[in-house]
């Protein structure tokens, strides 16, 4: 080790930077650079620890698995995703703005806000302007009632129109979704048919192959059986031949016995 250090003194001054460490752990260094870094690691324990830490963080991160997702279908006509999510979002903002404006107007109306700018300067006043004769309490009350009634009416009308608008939007979205679901179902059905057809074809092929195999096996079995039978018949024939031979010999024996008996001298009895 010492020898190497003396021969290559530059190794002592070489110190990889952050960028080099990263390239090292992501395996993006040239062979020469890699060798230098590895040499440095051998000699430098702190650096080794540092790299180990980075690698460990990497290893732990690797434990997150990818989620499996299916991409939705996009349509050019609407430049929108065919999906039900977040379709209601776009109209909420204008509606909120409209509601805020009407609220400000209503509040202004209720509190009788008056803003004037004249020679006396800028002035802002709330409430009913006092006239010379003034209003009686009941008159004020009736005025307020009237104002409330008018406001309620306007508000209800606004609410109604908003409701209708929302309903229309929901209807159109629902129709669109239904169309998409239908087309999706048709696509799914076609796909299923295709899959089923493929399966049927495969199963037919398998069945045919199986039948062929069975027939072949049966033919072999028959052939073997035939050979066995033939051997048995052959054996029987051989037995028969043996028997015949034996019979012939016995017959010959008998005949020769008879013949010798016939030719025996009579005096022997």
């Amino acid at each position, binding site marked *: 080790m010492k020898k190497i250090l003396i021969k290559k003194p530059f190794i002592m001054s070489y110190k990889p930077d*952050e*960028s080099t*460490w*990263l390239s090292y752990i*992501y395996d*993006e260094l040239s062979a020469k650079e890699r060798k230098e870094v590895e040499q440095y690691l051998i000699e430098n324990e702190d650096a080794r620890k540092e790299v180990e*830490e*980075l690698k*460990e*963080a*990497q*290893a*732990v*991160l*690797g*434990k*997150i*698995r*990818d*989620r*499996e*997702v*299916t*991409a*939705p*279908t*996009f*349509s*050019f006509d609407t*430049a*929108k*995703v065919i*999906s039900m*999510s*977040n379709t209601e979002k776009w109209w909420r903002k204008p509606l909120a703005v409209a509601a805020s404006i009407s609220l400000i107007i209503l509040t202004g109306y209720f509190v009788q806000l008056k803003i004037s700018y004249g020679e006396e300067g800028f002035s802002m006043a709330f409430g009913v302007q006092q006239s010379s004769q003034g209003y009686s309490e009941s008159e004020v009350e009736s005025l307020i009632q009237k104002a409330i009634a008018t406001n309620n009416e306007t508000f209800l009308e606004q609410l109604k129109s908003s409701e209708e608008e929302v309903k229309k939007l929901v209807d159109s979205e629902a129709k669109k979704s239904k169309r998409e679901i239908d087309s999706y179902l048709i696509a799914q059905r076609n796909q299923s048919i295709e899959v089923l057809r493929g399966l049927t074809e495969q199963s037919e092929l398998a069945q045919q192959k199986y039948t062929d195999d069975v027939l072949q096996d049966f033919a072999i079995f028959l052939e073997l059986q035939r050979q066995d039978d033939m051997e048995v018949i052959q054996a029987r024939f051989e037995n028969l031949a043996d028997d015949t031979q034996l019979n012939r010999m016995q017959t010959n024996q008998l005949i020769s016995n008879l013949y010798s008996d016939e030719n025996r001298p009579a005096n022997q009895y």
Partner: protein
Amino acid sequence: MQAAQVNQSMINTSSLIESALAGDEAAFNQLVSLWYKRIYNYSLKHCGDEDLTADITQRTFIAVYRNLSKLKEKSRFKPWLYRIATNFCYEEGRRKSKSKTVPFAFSSNEEGEVTMVGDGEAKGSFFNPEHSFQQQELERILFDCLGQLSEDQRSVIIMKEYEGMKFHEIADALNASENTIKTRLYRGLKTLKLKLDEKNINKETIHYEL
């Protein structure tokens, strides 16, 4: 496998962009299906909420459709796509942090049971029945740790670690120099290691958990 998929995507992407620009709806949808899963998983690691992620991913591809003609070099589609997705993720992140009132809160569910909700903890929609409880728990902690990083560091880590992007591609996507990207990645990984140590997550405990 993942890298192979990405390479395959690169081969087809250019021709699909040409066809989509010429008005071929099927080509555009094919382009979407090539990149949908990547963008979905990229965004999920940014915000840790599956509903929000689905929304971000859809908005990303609508933006892609609307701005595809502005993309000058077709070969830069990948960084460009990730830049759009990143912007939507940042936007959602800011919206989320604005609406968040108490960082560590008690919330009650419909039955009135009071449960404790930690800062950045994953929501119910995070549940995936395919994964074991330990895997889900580990992922929840990792998402939580990622969520505690700065947006810039998080983007770089996800792009490098999970999307396998080259440094120059990340630099292009995030509109920064390669050196800046490397610095962010280095600091991000260091910070992440500290966060993981705090939660006692390391090589040994992972093996024990799984």
